[in-house]
């Protein structure tokens, strides 16, 4: 009996500690208290960002409280949405890109929504004809190079994928493992577009012979290996985004006259990110409003400096610093989404075999 009492008192203590904690942590938003304000949950990846003011304006106008559920990188977030589709965790999912799109559509996580603003969006971005996934933003994955490094060597930066095989660029390039990194996969797809299957493997064999460096992800490639970043690594060439020079300029610790990096606009791959209403959302009307908002100028003009992507809405004006240093490739690679989905594992396995083993 005494033992039972001991156990029970411990349990009580445990529960009390847990209850006390919820007061230590910031209390739930006031929204929960007032029934007039509804909650809309948006599931997204970790890179999602937006301005407070823009979000607040939407919340105010629609009497809604937005909750963002950041769920890991793009792959992890989508995986979670697919896993929980029987009891969805959110009303809206943002952040599936064209490399994962067919997967998301095949899993049937989205409900179609013909947003009126889609009319303005160029046809090239509307990759789902049924409008289950609606394009929001896009950007190009391109090689970035360290301008000072190449100036110092009195050497031009590379102009094409073929240039990277030249002896003078030996050991200068760092790329991300396409199996673990989304820009890495994009770059692999760019080479597949350019050299075809199985020609891309020849290209990678040559790239490997020219001492290409492979790391796990973008953070390592950019901050550890790339020479123009703060990590001051050994490689002056890195696979990153065509908007990265703008970020380098904007986030410089001391004001710069010029961006320290530039993008090679050949051999790029265009990533398009989509949003969709999750099947079974009880807040369908609100979710539609939120998607309209994401396609509206207010949000589209906020995106470039928050996430360093281009808006799909052609009416959205670009911020000056962004427009000055961010670039778009003239003819980026963009493989059909179904082809990517069908071959993804095969390509990755072959690439791993050739480059890593």
């Amino acid at each position, binding site marked *: 009996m005494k033992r039972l009492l*001991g156990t029970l008192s411990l349990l009580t203590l445990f529960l009390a500690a*847990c209850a006390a904690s919820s007061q230590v942590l910031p209390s739930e938003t006031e929204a929960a208290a007032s029934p007039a304000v509804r909650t809309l949950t948006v599931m997204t990846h970790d*890179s999602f960002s*937006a301005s407070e003011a823009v*979000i607040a304006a939407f919340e105010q106008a629609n009497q809604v409280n937005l*909750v963002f559920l950041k769920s890991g990188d793009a792959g992890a977030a989508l995986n979670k949405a*697919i896993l929980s589709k029987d009891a969805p965790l959110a009303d809206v999912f943002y952040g599936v890109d064209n490399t994962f799109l067919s997967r998301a559509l095949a899993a049937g996580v989205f409900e179609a929504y013909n947003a009126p603003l889609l009319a303005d969006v160029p046809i090239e971005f509307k990759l789902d004809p049924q409008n289950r996934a609606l394009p929001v933003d896009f950007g190009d994955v391109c090689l970035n190079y360290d301008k000072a490094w190449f100036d110092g060597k009195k050497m031009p930066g590379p102009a094409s994928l073929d240039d990277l095989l030249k002896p003078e660029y030996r050991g200068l390039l760092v790329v991300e493992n396409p199996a673990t990194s989304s820009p890495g996969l994009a770059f692999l797809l760019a080479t597949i577009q350019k050299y075809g299957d199985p020609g891309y493997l020849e290209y990678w064999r040559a790239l490997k012979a020219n001492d290409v460096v492979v790391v796990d992800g973008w953070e390592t490639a950019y901050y550890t290996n790339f020479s123009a*970043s*703060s990590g001051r690594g050994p490689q002056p060439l890195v696979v990153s985004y065509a908007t990265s020079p703008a970020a380098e300029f904007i986030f410089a610790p001391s004001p710069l006259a010029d961006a*320290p990096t530039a993008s090679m606009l050949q051999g790029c791959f265009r990533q398009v990110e989509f949003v969709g209403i999750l099947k079974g959302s009880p807040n369908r009307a609100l979710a539609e409003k939120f998607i309209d908002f994401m396609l509206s100028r207010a949000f589209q003009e906020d995106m470039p400096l928050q996430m360093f992507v281009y808006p799909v809405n052609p009416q959205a004006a670009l911020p000056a610093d962004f427009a000055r240093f961010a670039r778009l490739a003239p003819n980026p690679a963009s493989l059909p989404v179904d082809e990517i989905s069908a071959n993804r594992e095969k390509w990755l396995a072959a690439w791993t075999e050739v480059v890593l083993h």
Partner: protein
Amino acid sequence: MKLRLLPAVLFLGIFFFLPLGRILALSLAPLSQLDAALFSRLADVLRFTFFQAAASSLLTVLFGLPLAFLFARVDFPLKPFLRTLTAIPFMLPTVVVAAAFNALLGPRGWFNLALMSALGLSQPPIIFLGTLGAILAAHVFYNATIVIRLVGNAWANLDPRLGQAARSLGASPASVFWQVTLPLLRPALLAATLLVFLFDFTSYGVILLLGGPKFSTIEVEIALQALQMLNLPAAALLSLIQLLCTLTFSVLYTRSLSRLAAPLKPVPQTPRRAQTRLERLLVASLVCVLLMFYALPLLALPLRSISRLEAQRGQRTASGPALTLEYYTELFINRRGSIFYIPPATAARNSLAYAGLTVACSLLLGFPAAQALARPGRLEKWLDPLLLLPLGASAVTLGLGYLLTFNRPLVPFLVPGRGLALSFLASPLIVPLAHTTIALPFVIRSLQAALATIPPRYREAAAVLGASPWQVWWQVDWKILSRALVSAGAFAFTVSLGEFGAASLLARPEYPTLPTAIFRFLSQPGGMNYGQALAMATILMTITGLAIGLIEKERVAGEF
């Protein structure tokens, strides 16, 4: 089953075995769809996982053992500071440790820069990142503190007369170590080795960030299959293999431990200063190794967070970067008005609140469980290795399991009328509870070992003197165990603060922690982002250092 075990078993049942079971059941159903290529790769991955874990554990034990002796038996300057220092890596996110190693040993790290300018080389002479050496060094860096603490505790309580008896019987100091000290330390050593091995076996971040894509462990492969290939059956199969390996190790460990059990009376020893010149030399060189191995990488980080390197673009081998505090001041400004801006104080508060809760929950659940297991019946013996399993679980799989299990209310009628089934997953409690599942096995394990050393007659004496069972527990067990409790609590604290394991897969945007903030800065290009990430990492390091320092101080004061 003993009633005291019930809370812990229930807890792990709900927060570990249930989610894990659900994800495995869901994923393993379409197992037949797996292709043969995966299986052929599996052998390589398994081999490397075992190899690196065994090599890392061996090195960790070899490195940690002399330091365990140093901290247990010798009194030397800066001891509390150095002890705290060894615990800090344990709770730093891998990204931060990778950045620290990079700042020190990377291609443009201090060592390479110094050697290049001294020897007039054009290429960095030390190639560290992307090698097996980097993986092993990082594992030692992370886990040596486990050996130092577990073995050190046992060593500090070892009766010195046993060694003296051996000496008088003609054993040389070396023989005393091999024939007496080491066998007596074996239970602690085994426990430490198993823990280190399990951490290395399930290593993920270190392999990816420091080893690079050439190396792959089971956990890396699980993440790859689950998150990139969206191939859940493959991920589930791999998780199952990893779990079975963990279970095997745990069973082997409990078996060998019960065979070893030599009840030892703890005889706490006062550390003494080195006396002869040789002793002083040895201690000095050990302290030097300690400083080199821990202080240098850990100093590289704060130093980097206050130096501005951009000014010397184009002439980067030149020395003397300008010092600046702007990465810190910038942390307090929401420059771009982002809704995800995290003030450092808030992040620190959230981190500490989670860590505090994790400590409370894991001690309250772990203590009675350890008491039940200290004198186990048949059922308890059987349950014992199972309780270790969370240490070897794939964080990725467990995270997905949480998603499946807790996306609807556990007890529906308690949470009525919520539009979405977010209830439990959205509760801020889920994070410390997830941390508790990881910390609990260790807490139980270390308390169990300490409890076994309390002779029952102390409790009987207290009872005869009129203490109620509750008072006996408080006056005897709690007081005598303060040392073990503090180190178990410190472990739970660090598990939570470093956010490794399943917790990183749980989405909790409302209560961002320090590691979350660091990841946010690192995900965008630009010198300011990198600087702020390092500044935030320095803050995390300082807070954890202070917290551990305080705990250690408490421990010294409360020693019997």
